């Protein structure tokens, strides 16, 4: 069965690992009561991870535009192909939307992102106390949608591997 290109595989797993790391860090940091140096550190790391995901998402979209993914196996039903295609599109949207919503949330809070503590990234909007709680909710719910989508994506991959045994999962293995 035709595999994904090694670049696509690399980008897939890098983004997967960073999304899991950013998500876990987001859960842990928002659970720390009060303000501690550790909490502030995690917030910074969380933002750096998000910015990295966004940059990789751009690369991935560019790569995808020039390299058609391998076709779905003929054994898949029409609705399964549509569902898979729809979920992949949603995942693509979310690896942009989740970091972007976080980025604008921190800008609205008046805290610019200094990537890796080295480069200040563009301040695209002024601090906005009215927008801040809205963007916080948007960031949270987009994140929850991403978590749900990833869960379905993983479940589908495992179904291909252990139930359908059609080799789809192996196409994306490193």
């Amino acid at each position, binding site marked *: 069965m035709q595999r994904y290109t090694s670049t696509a595989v690399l980008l897939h797993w890098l983004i997967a690992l960073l999304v899991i790391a950013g998500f876990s860090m987001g859960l842990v940091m928002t659970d720390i009561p009060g303000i501690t*140096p550790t909490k*502030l550190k995690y917030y910074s790391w969380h933002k750096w991870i998000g910015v990295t995901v966004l940059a990789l998402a751009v690369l991935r979209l560019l790569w995808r535009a020039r390299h058609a993914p391998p076709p779905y196996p003929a054994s898949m039903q029409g609705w399964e192909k549509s569902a898979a295609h729809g979920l992949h599109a949603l995942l693509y949207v979310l690896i942009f939307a989740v970091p972007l919503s976080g980025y604008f949330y921190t800008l609205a*809070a*008046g805290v*610019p992102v200094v990537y890796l503590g080295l480069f*200040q990234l563009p301040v695209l909007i002024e601090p906005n*106390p009215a927008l*801040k709680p809205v963007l916080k909710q948007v960031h949270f719910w987009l994140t929850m949608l991403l978590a749900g989508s990833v869960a379905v994506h993983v479940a589908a991959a495992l179904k291909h591997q252990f139930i359908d045994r059609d080799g789809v999962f192996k196409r994306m293995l490193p």
Partner: protein
Amino acid sequence: MTLHRSLLLVSLLAVTLYAAAAPLKTDVAHSSVAAVFKQMNVPVESRFKKFNAQIDYDPARPDAAKASVEIDTASLDLGEPEMNREVAKKEWFNSAQFPKASFVSTGIRAAGPGKLNVSGKLSIKGKSADVSFPLTVKAEAGKQVFEGALPIRRLAYNVGEGEWKDTSMVADEVVIKFRVIAAQ
């Protein structure tokens, strides 16, 4: 007639002198005092919501000027209620014991048109130090606008104790930026 004129002159002079010696009225609503610092290299600017400034300034006699500022340490607004509560705690400003930070000028010297050099005593969290900084003054719509920035080291005033002494988290240097508007 002569007596009347002299009296008038004397009273006019007295009024003028009194006016020159009277402190300006600070327009607190349009003034601002902010702390600018870096948190993991991220520039943060936050304002003190409550402060008071008394400025005695006559453009004709800048060297006779006097200034004093009092700031409510618990009023620093970092944009999150949780953070605002944190800075009032013992490790930071210890606002329960030291509710006010203050600056009192000891000498003000003219340093060119619209420029003053100010020296004075800055007291934060029970620690005082001599500081000096330049400021600019300009007249705007009949009011005097005083603007300047005073860089200090927070650890010299014990602001940020324990684990907050770590300057890689919150930098030692803090710039106190102010813009005070006052009128007769």
